[in-house]
Every structure is written in C-alpha cells, then in structure tokens.
C-alpha cells in the first residue's frame, strides 16, 4: 500500500518535472513548441526531423534556455536532497541550509572575495572561474555548517531554539558583512552583490552548468544511500550507534556534501532559500518521514520546484525578471511559519 503510493507520487512528480522542463525551455519572449525542442535537440545527435524551426529559436534554446533549465534542475535537486539530509542529521524538519545560515555564509564569502579584489577570480571565466568561486563559497558554507551544528548540539540532543537562533545570528552577521562591503564596492560589484543576496539563474551558461555538475550530482547520488542511517539518527545519536550506525561518518558526509552543493549553487546562482525546507515537508506529508523514500523523491521534486520558480521569475513581469530567491521565499516563508506553529503546538502537548 505504502509502496503503491510512493510509485504513484514518483510517476506524478516525474511527469510534472518533464512538463515543466519543456515549459521552461519553450516559454518566453521567443516561444518554442515541445516538438521544435525535440527537433532541435535530436538534430545534435544526428536526427533530422520534418519539424520546422528558426535559427533564432535554435540559438535561444541552446545558448540560453537549455543551460538555464539544467542549472535549475541541478541546483533544485541538490538543495532539496541536502536539506532533507540536514533535517535527518539535526533530527528536526526545520533545519534548512538557508535558514540556519549556511547559504548566507557562502554568499558572504563570495562577496568578500570579490570586493576585497581577489581580482583573479572575476577574471577567470568559464568552468575554472566557477570552480574557483565555488571553492570560496564552499569554504564559507562549510565553516557556518560546522559552527551551527556544534552550537546547537548539547548532550547528544539538538536544541532547536539554539539552531534557529544561531541561524538568525549568522544570517544577520553575514548580511551586515555583505552590507559593509557594498560601501567598498564599485558599480559592477554592487550589481553582483545584489545578485548574491537575492539569487538568480540569469547568469546561466554552459560553463556554469559544467562547473557545478560534480558538486550537485554527488549529494544527489550519495545522500540517498545514507537514508537508513539517517532514520536511525532520528532516535538520537547514541541510539543510532547502538543500531550499528557509524555516526561520525554520517555527520561528516552530510555536512560536507551539503556545504559542497550549497557552495556550488551560491557561486552560480546566489542564495535561493527554502527549497530544502519546503520540498522535504511536502514529501513527508504525502509519503511519510522515512528517509529511504524522502531522499529518493526530494531531488525530483526539488528540480520541479526550481524549474517552475525560475519560469515564474522570468515570465511573470516580462520584460523585467524577478530574482528567483524572492519567489522561493514567497512560497517557503509561509510554509516555514506554519511548521513553527505546528512544532510549538506539539511541544505544548507534552
């Protein structure tokens, strides 16, 4: 019964993802029909179909839309799966990389590096530039992740209040630091700072896609293998150890992979909040809290959410483009508030 339900959800979400990817590639100032998309893509592998399309359509798809949709898929799936794994580690559904400061730690590191004139970074373009910046944002993300985890653990328990408060503190500290750098920044730097604070997929390119590919695929493929251990973790760290889990390695792998994909996605798209919170929450509501299903479904639904959010960001107010971080926050913040209220109620019942 449970398995049938999971199968249905998987098929439904995958279908929606395919539709949204086609919409993401087809909709915009230049519209391209799904058939034309197929024709353009299959031509690359040597098929010639009868479907007609223009050169403009082909170059828009190949140079702009396709890398952008791929970026949304990679970032959405890795943020969602690492959010779910973080929640397993913290034993609480409220832990999210953006809420507890990991994303802003990463973006602060990026802004600091750029304004402090580590010029070599902005001058390196393409894949190696993405790698260099990714490394800096990864360091920022890793440091904040370790600090928050250490702060919120006490006697083998996660103190949720400490975790969220530490997140607030780090978020505002990183915000203040970023704000400080805006005074030192020139015009071009200012634009990129705004970009990091609000998040956008507007800078998508094939270089970006190749740059984050390894860092986003690693969590998507490795984290689901830790599902059973994370289930055991929900009983508390020492109980998990008594169930044969190597708790130290679980902690290290989850924190490292989360920092890796948050760092990489911040490097190319800035802070995109709440994906890691909203997606696991919706999945838990439909198939329950078992990480074996959660970590498998989260990447698919995360990709779906981000492709749709990006589509909304660039088509709602044509020709202006909204930062995608605003869209995900508009969806995510109310869900978060609802979850906090629910959590408070459940604590009162004890």
């Amino acid at each position, binding site marked *: 019964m449970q398995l049938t339900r999971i199968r249905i959800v998987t098929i439904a979400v995958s279908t929606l993802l395919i539709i949204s990817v086609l919409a993401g590639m087809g909709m915009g100032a230049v519209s391209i029909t799904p058939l034309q998309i197929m024709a353009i893509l299959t031509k690359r592998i040597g098929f010639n179909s009868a479907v007609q399309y223009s050169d403009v359509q082909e170059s828009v798809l190949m140079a702009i839309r396709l890398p952008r949709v791929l970026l949304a898929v990679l970032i959405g799936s890795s943020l969602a799966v690492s959010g779910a794994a973080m929640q397993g580690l913290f034993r609480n559904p409220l832990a999210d990389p953006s809420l507890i400061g990991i994303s802003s730690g990463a973006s602060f590191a990026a802004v600091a590096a750029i304004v402090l004139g580590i010029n070599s970074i902005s001058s390196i373009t393409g894949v190696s530039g993405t790698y260099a910046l990714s490394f800096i944002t990864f360091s920022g993300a890793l440091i904040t992740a370790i600090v928050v985890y250490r702060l919120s653990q006490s006697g083998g328990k996660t103190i949720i209040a400490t975790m969220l408060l530490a997140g607030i503190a780090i978020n505002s500290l990183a915000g203040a630091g970023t704000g400080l750098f805006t005074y030192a920044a020139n015009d071009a730097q200012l634009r990129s700072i705004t970009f990091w604070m609000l998040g956008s997929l507007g800078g998508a390119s094939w270089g970006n896609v190749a740059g984050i590919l390894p860092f986003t695929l690693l969590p998507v493929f490795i984290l689901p293998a830790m599902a059973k251990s994370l289930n055991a973790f929900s009983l508390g760290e*020492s109980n998990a150890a*008594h169930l044969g889990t190597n708790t130290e390695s679980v902690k290290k792998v989850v924190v490292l992979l989360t920092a890796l994909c948050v760092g990489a996605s911040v490097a190319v798209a800035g802070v995109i909040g709440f994906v890691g919170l909203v997606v696991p929450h919706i999945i838990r509501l439909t198939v*329950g809290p078992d990480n074996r299903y959660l970590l498998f479904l989260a990447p698919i639904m995360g990709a779906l959410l981000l492709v749709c959010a990006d589509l909304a960001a660039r088509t709602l107010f044509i020709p202006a483009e909204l930062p995608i971080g605003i869209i995900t926050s508009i969806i995510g913040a109310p869900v978060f508030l609802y979850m906090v209220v629910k959590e408070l109620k459940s604590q009162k019942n004890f």
Partner: protein
Amino acid sequence: MLNVQHINYRISPSLALTDISFDVQPGELVAILGANGAGKSTLLKIITGSIKMNSGNVLINKLPLTYWSPKSLSTFAAVMQQQNQLQLPFSVFEVVMMGRYPHFKRRETQTDEDIVNEVLVRTGIQKLKDRNYLTLSGGEQQRVHLARVLAQISGGKSENSRYLFMDEPSNNLDIRHQHSALNIAKEFAGEGNCVVAVLHDLNLALQYADKIVLLKNGAMKGFGTCADIMTDASISDVYDLPLSIFHPPMGRHPMVMPVGNNVLINA
C-alpha cells in the same frame, strides 16, 4: 557471558566510578541499584561503549568491547535508553522496524516483518501498529522502544547469547506494564541471554533480578543474589534511608519499605 572487570572512570569528583566488577551469566537478569547520582547510568553507558572508561575491561562473549565493531555488536546486543528523542512522525511499525536495521541492507525482508509483528504481539502493542509514534503517551512510547530493542536481538540462530541493556525500563509505565516489561526481560534472559537493567524500584528488583549490583557514590557496595546482598543494613546504607525488607508469608516476593520514627510497624 558478560564480564565487567575493575572499571575505573572519572571526569569530576562528583561523577566517578571506582573498581566496579561483576559478571552476567547466560540466563541471568542482573539489576543495577543505587541512589540518584550513584553512577548507574554512567556504568551502563560504559558497558555499552557509549563512554570510554579510564581503566578496566568489559568482555562480551569473552572478547573485549573494543574488539567488536559497532556494526557486529548491534546484531546481538541492544540498548534501551532512558530518554528517546524521536521528533518525526514515524508509525509504531516503522520505529520497531528500526530495530531490524542491523540485519538488512536496504529493504526489510519477510523475516524482518515477521519478527517485528511477533514482537509487537509479545509487548502487547499490536493495536498501536499503524499509529503515529508522536501521538502516543509516554508509557506507550516506552513500550514501543522495548519492542524495538527486542526486535533488534530476536530471530535467527546464534550459539552465543544475546545481550539486552536497559536503563530504567519501567519509566512512565503503570504497574501492570512495569511487570509485563520485566517479565519480558526475564523471559528473554531465560532463553540463554544476558540482561542488565538499571532499576529504581527495589521491589521490582527483588522480584525479577537473579543478581544485584549495589552502587553508592560510584563504588560497589555489593554484588550477588538478592538473598545474599539485599539486607536491611546494605540497602539502608546505599539509599541513606532506613529501609527494611519484609518477607510475606506463602512464598510471596519480599518487599522493601521505609522504616523510621514516623513509620508505624507491627512486628
């Protein structure tokens, strides 16, 4: 067989264990007794490997604790802790199935499901099977964890005995379920296994324990059968309260009661 040999542990003057030794033979239920802060839970954490001792030995099946990897240990030794921190809405069945995690790689087998169902019946919570764990009462949650640790070390064939460690298993339970929990533990020991339980209730200890470890301020005050070491003097000393053991007629279990100026006794 479990051998605890000369354990010493010290992190502060108020929390220390000095020279603790006792053995648990297959088939025995050994209770650890002592006042609050005597070091009972700390001792249990050392025996189960959660805390490292400063000196001494813990032997499980005649091999030192450090010889066993957590993974192999988890297939035949289970620990029921005092506190559990589950905050996610798992069903009772799913929580009990977690006890089977050491035995399968990704998906549970039919055998695992059979064991879980059998344990649910044995602990009397089969009716709660599909309930959300978070909506249960404290006592019901405690019974779910009892079922979980039993599932962990049930089933399969093994020449060596299995081990069950329990930290205050009667917490939150009403009198009927206290007795049923200890009956289950006793029955499990009777199948050739070793059970160690930290207990608060002296009467439960007198009724169910084969042997008793008496702790006071981190030091052993005695180890042996109830008849040998449970005397008015020894338990009054351990708990700093005048206590007396009464032996009701007709072979009923002995009972402990406080005695003192304000307690009337008809001797």
